[in-house]
Structure formats: C-alpha cells, structure tokens
C-alpha cells in the first residue's frame, strides 16, 4: 500500500517522492523560549525555515518584544535547530519530541 506523503503547509514541493517515504515520520520539535533574555534581533523569526516564530506584543523587563510560537504553526516545527544555533542570546532551544 502506498501512503500519501505527509506535507505540512508551506513545505517545499517534493519533486520526486522517495519509494520509502511513508516509512519515515517528519520529526517534531518543541520550542522553549526564555522571554527575559530575548533582545528582538529577529534572527530566529527570519531564519526559521517553517516560519514558526513571531514577535509577541508583550514587553519583557528590558523593553523588548520577545518571540513566541505562532498559534497556527504550533505543529510545524521539525526540530532542525536553526533558531537555537542562530540565537545570540541563548534565549531559545528546541527539544525533539519522540513520535510514538
């Protein structure tokens, strides 16, 4: 039986579907943010490949708007770790969620 490939919205086109695509689950990540450390540099919001993050209207103790996870993209994180490695402030990290 051939399974339909799971493609989340805004994912790039798959130009050739691998024969064993259905056997692999898309990894899922859980984003943790320290809002008091964020300095609003916008690196994570711009470099996230799935645009999962956005600036929140809240203000932290230093007057910056910390990032938050977009409500509509809660399940789109694929745990690539880009936001973690590009954050200069150690304010964000990603944990991969084990898929049962």
């Amino acid at each position, binding site marked *: 039986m051939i399974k339909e490939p799971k493609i989340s919205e805004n994912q790039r086109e798959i130009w050739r579907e691998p024969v064993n695509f259905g056997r692999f689950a898309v990894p899922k990540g859980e984003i943790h943010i320290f809002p008091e450390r964020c*300095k609003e540099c916008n690196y994570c919001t711009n470099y996230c490949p799935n645009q999962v993050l956005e600036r929140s209207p809240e203000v932290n103790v230093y007057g910056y708007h910390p990032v938050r996870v977009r409500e509509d993209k809660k399940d789109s994180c694929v745990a690539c770790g880009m936001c973690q490695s590009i954050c*200069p402030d150690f304010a964000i990290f990603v944990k991969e969620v084990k898929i049962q």
Partner: protein
Amino acid sequence: MTEVEYHPKHELIREERFPHVWCPGCGLGIELQCYLNALEKSGIPQDSHVLVSGIGCTARIPGYANLDTYHTTHGRGLPFATGMKIANPDLKVTVISGDGDLFNIGGNHFIHAARRNMDLLVICSNNFNYGMTGGQHGSTTPPTSKSASTPYGNIEPTFNLPYIASALGASYVARWTVMHPRQLTKSIRTAMEVKGFAFIEVLSPCPPNFGKFNGFKDGFEEMEFYRKSSVVQNDAKLEDISIDPFHGKNIVLGDFVNRKRASYITLEHELIDRVRGGGQ
C-alpha cells in the same frame, strides 16, 4: 508545579550573568555557542579547557563561559596564553578576541605566536571596526566603507588575516561568518585537535556601529549581506581573499590550510628529553 527549564548549554555558561551585555543583533553570542558546541563534541574534559581574551566586546566572551577563563590586558591575550600552555601543556588553551585586540594593538604578539607555531587555538572575531569605543576604523575596515573616524570612506587597504596567518606558518587557517554556525562549529572542532597554531577568523555583524554607518538597518540586514556575498571555496588562493565586499567582490570562506608542522611544545619537549638524556 512546572519543572524548571534549562538551556542545553546551562552547564557551560554562567547563566546568572545572562542576558549578556552585547547589543541586539551582535554575533558574538552565536560565536560563543559554536565554541561551546565544539567543546562539548571534542571529548576533552571541561576542566582542561582555558579561555583567554584581551580587551573589547569579544573579550567579554570568557565572562559568560563556565570554564577557567582569563580577561587580560589589551592585546596581550596571546602572551598570557603562551605562558599558560608552556607551564601546563595538558591544557587546551583557546584565545578568543577581536580584530582590534589581536591585530592592531597585539599584532606583534600574533606574528610571533604564529611563527613559533605555538599550540594555541586563536578565534578572531572580525567586525571591521572598534565596536566598544564607538565604531572607529581599524586595520580590518574594508576599503571605502564608512566608520566614525572615516565619514567619507576608508582609504586604507585592509589586512588579509588568513593570508597573514598562513604566511607565518600556522598549522590551521579558516574563515567563517556567524551566519554559518554549523560549519564554524565543525571548524573549531577540527582546530581543537590540530597540533600547532590554529587560526579561525569569524566575521560578525556590528549593527550599531559598522552596520549603521554603512546603511544596514539592523543586524538581520547585515547577516543577509554576509549570506548573499559569501562563497565557500576551500582551495582559494589566500593572497586574493582580502575582504572588499563594497566593490562587488565576494567574501571567500572555507577551511584553507591544515598542514603538519612541528609545534613549539613538541620541539620543546624533544629538547628537554635530549638534554636530560645527556645529549647536547
């Protein structure tokens, strides 16, 4: 009650000192994170690592690393590190400092440390100006770019740091930007195993000074500039890779040199063994 969350690097950073002093968009935090990632992967215990710095924005990095760290006088990070390495060769000594510290005031120390092929890892953060004092031009400012002290454009040619290090005989030479965190981590990881002088130049954005004077609105625009104008070319001719991005020249990145050359500590220990064994 929710569980207290920690950053994955919380054992390697001094978390009570965060948020750090660097400006929004500064690349130094990424550089620190890449160093800590490489340190974790190196397999060398945390107690054996020492981080030395001079003066400047970059020299604040050791203050945030939970290691044995030294914040030394201006430009003199390399002599301190050299002494430490000779006194205790088991340590893995890393010097992390800015371009102004390592090449302007401490240029002579750099020349001699590289000539001796001292067993040190030197990470030079290059932001093209003196960031801490307000963005004056220095020896690494690209031609015709503006700064606080060159409002009509810089007329001086710039230092080509990998070429200098390679000409002086460094064992390992590389250049990356903070826009390439994975490659930078891999490069630092490789350099930690090199015997002899390892030099990595890291290009880092400086949004309130260099960025502001040269028309970059924020740190993200400067990062995008690095991303678009850089090419990876590991076998580049080092004499041609000076940084001149405002005349349509690409910034060449890569691991340029990795060669075997007798290091100072090896030669010193050979000498000690020979003399103690009754030789001349």
